[in-house]
């Protein structure tokens, strides 16, 4: 994670058009609302996506991310507001006239056509010459390593190959914008991870702007340049994966992305940008820093990632925050172990450590009294 942080600091040399006020966005959602009858799918949404971005729309099912994608493709109309592509309103442009292509969740490969014909389908609709089509299809087959399968029908190839055919077909027309609807959802975990890197490579090689819809936060974090976390038709936060993870703007985002401990209490100023959080009767307040200010007695949620919490048998010296508890459960994940530590008040805090030693040397086990500790800067203080 520190690597990503560095990236955002030296933004001049790094790809971050969203930080540059002179950059014109490729896509602009302006106060877009979409209603299906009474149901509000997209609620007054404003968003800019820049050229060559790999932009992820992330959220639980029913949050409106698929509707946003379908509006970009032209399959759904906009109820209010407008969507611009390269500065032009595309509200009334039908899907077949948009410089936007989509990779469908089910891949939607034409079962009666061969791999070659599937990829050539869009090019043929543009009445391109045969030589041009041949050259472009070959280029796409090569890009997706499908040369050997060009004569096969979709049902004669594997799931991973189908996924690549769908990608090749949607990239063949060199769209300004490629939409990917849960592109890796149908693949098993191992293949999905390989394919994520392949997608990133292809996105970089072709320089196409990708917008990906996914409910898998790990996938969004891996591939995206920026992630938009959505809920109930609204965007809760848009930021780089590192900033979403390290600086969530709400408990919803903190909880949705990765694992998090939330300590709820009331804030009291303790020093410059430092607050004491009273969180349980009979427990010492915990200390946390925050750039956003909290008034005296305001409700505050301290969000701390489990890997930022240390666990030890003895009370650590010089720790900003240290609490004593008892190990309730240990989840051994191979490379990591997550300890569920129960505090005297009953609250459970998760602490994660990397298993740098072999498990036989582990000195903490079930029911052990332990100390958990974290620094004042480890967590994020959130109002809601």
């Amino acid at each position: 994670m520190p690597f990503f942080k560095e990236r955002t600091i030296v933004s001049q040399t790094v790809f971050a058009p969203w930080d540059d006020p002179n950059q014109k966005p490729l896509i602009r959602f302006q106060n877009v609302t979409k209603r299906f009858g009474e149901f509000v799918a997209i609620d007054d949404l404003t968003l800019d996506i820049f050229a060559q971005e790999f932009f992820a729309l992330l959220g639980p099912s029913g949050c409106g991310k698929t509707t946003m994608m379908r509006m970009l493709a032209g399959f759904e109309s906009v109820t209010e507001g407008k969507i611009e592509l390269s500065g032009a309103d595309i509200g009334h442009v039908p899907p077949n006239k948009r410089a936007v292509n989509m990779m469908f969740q089910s891949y939607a490969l034409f079962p009666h056509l061969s791999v070659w014909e599937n990829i050539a389908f869009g090019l043929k609709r543009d009445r391109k010459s045969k030589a041009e089509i041949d050259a472009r299809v070959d280029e796409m087959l090569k890009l997706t390593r499908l040369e050997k399968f060009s004569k096969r029908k979709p049902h004669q190839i594997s799931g991973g190959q189908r996924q690549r055919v769908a990608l090749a077909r949607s990239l063949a027309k060199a769209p300004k914008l490629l939409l990917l609807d849960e592109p890796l959802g149908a693949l098993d975990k191992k293949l999905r991870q390989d394919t994520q890197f392949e997608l990133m490579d292809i996105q970089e090689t072709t320089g196409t702007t990708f917008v990906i819809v996914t409910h898998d936060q790990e996938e969004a974090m891996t591939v995206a340049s920026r992630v938009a976390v959505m809920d109930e038709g609204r965007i809760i936060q848009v930021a780089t994966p590192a900033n979403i993870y390290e600086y969530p703007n709400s408990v919803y985002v903190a909880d949705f992305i990765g694992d998090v401990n939330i300590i709820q209490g009331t804030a009291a100023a303790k020093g410059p940008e430092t607050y004491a959080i009273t969180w349980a009767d009979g427990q010492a307040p915990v200390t946390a820093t925050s750039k956003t200010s909290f008034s005296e007695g305001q409700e505050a949620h301290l969000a701390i990632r489990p890997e930022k919490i240390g666990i030890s048998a003895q009370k650590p010296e010089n720790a900003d925050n240290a609490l004593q508890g008892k190990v309730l459960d240990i989840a051994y994940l191979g490379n990591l172990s997550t300890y569920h530590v129960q505090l005297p008040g009953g609250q459970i805090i998760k602490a994660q450590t990397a298993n740098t030693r072999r498990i036989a040397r582990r000195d903490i086990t079930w029911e052990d009294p332990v100390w958990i500790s974290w620094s004042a800067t480890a967590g994020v203080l959130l109002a809601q």
Partner: protein
Amino acid sequence: MKRLSWFNITSLTVGFAFLYLPMVILVIYSFNESKLVTVWAGFSTKWYGELLQNDAFLDAAWVTIKVAVISSTLATVLGTMAAYVLVRGGRFLGRTLFSGMIYAPLVMPEVITGLSLLLLFIGIGLDRGVLTIVLAHTTFSMCYVSVVVSSRLVSFDRSLEEAALDLGSSAWEAFRLVTLPLIAPAVIAGWLLAFTLSLDDLVIASFTAGPGATTLPIKIFSAVRLGVSPEINALSTIMIAIVTVGVISASLISKRNAVKAQKDARAAERAEA
């Protein structure tokens, strides 16, 4: 092989006898030497020969085939269009009414359909003949086509059409290049159904047929009223043979396709590994 119990053998025999005994008797008597239908007088194929000399029957057969081909083709086009609009058109005003009206003729008594068509043809002064039978058959068989095709369209993955649009097809291109090839089996099945319905329709054809154009079912029916002749048995046997060959070849083709699909699926699994 599993051994069948006595109960199973008995019910199988009774069931199939019930279904096929009448036809078997008809086929056997078509090879009867005697002119009397119910008296067996030895094997002969002479009634088949006489059938070929009977111009009235041959004319009627020709009219029937002509009517069946034209009306089932028209019905397939109209029925497919209707099914497409009803399944894909979304919720337009009166959709429920329209879909109800498409299916109503399925349960309408044929006598009423025939009578109303007759009144219409008289009303607009259309002379009854091949054209009127074709129109009548198209009218009632397009409903069947639309039922068959729409059941296929309902299960059709809509994103295939969207993908075609997304890749730059017009709506017509998407239909012609993607939807139609994929629903073709249902369209063909609809055509065959319409063809069969037209082939054996008696009631509606009797209302709409004119003096110049008589279909085979009408011809057979009126001939039988004068007494069953071995010639008719021969004709019926030929029809049974045609239908049997059709059914067997259709099931062979679908079986072969199923085997091929299975082989492809296995090949895909191997490719995955």
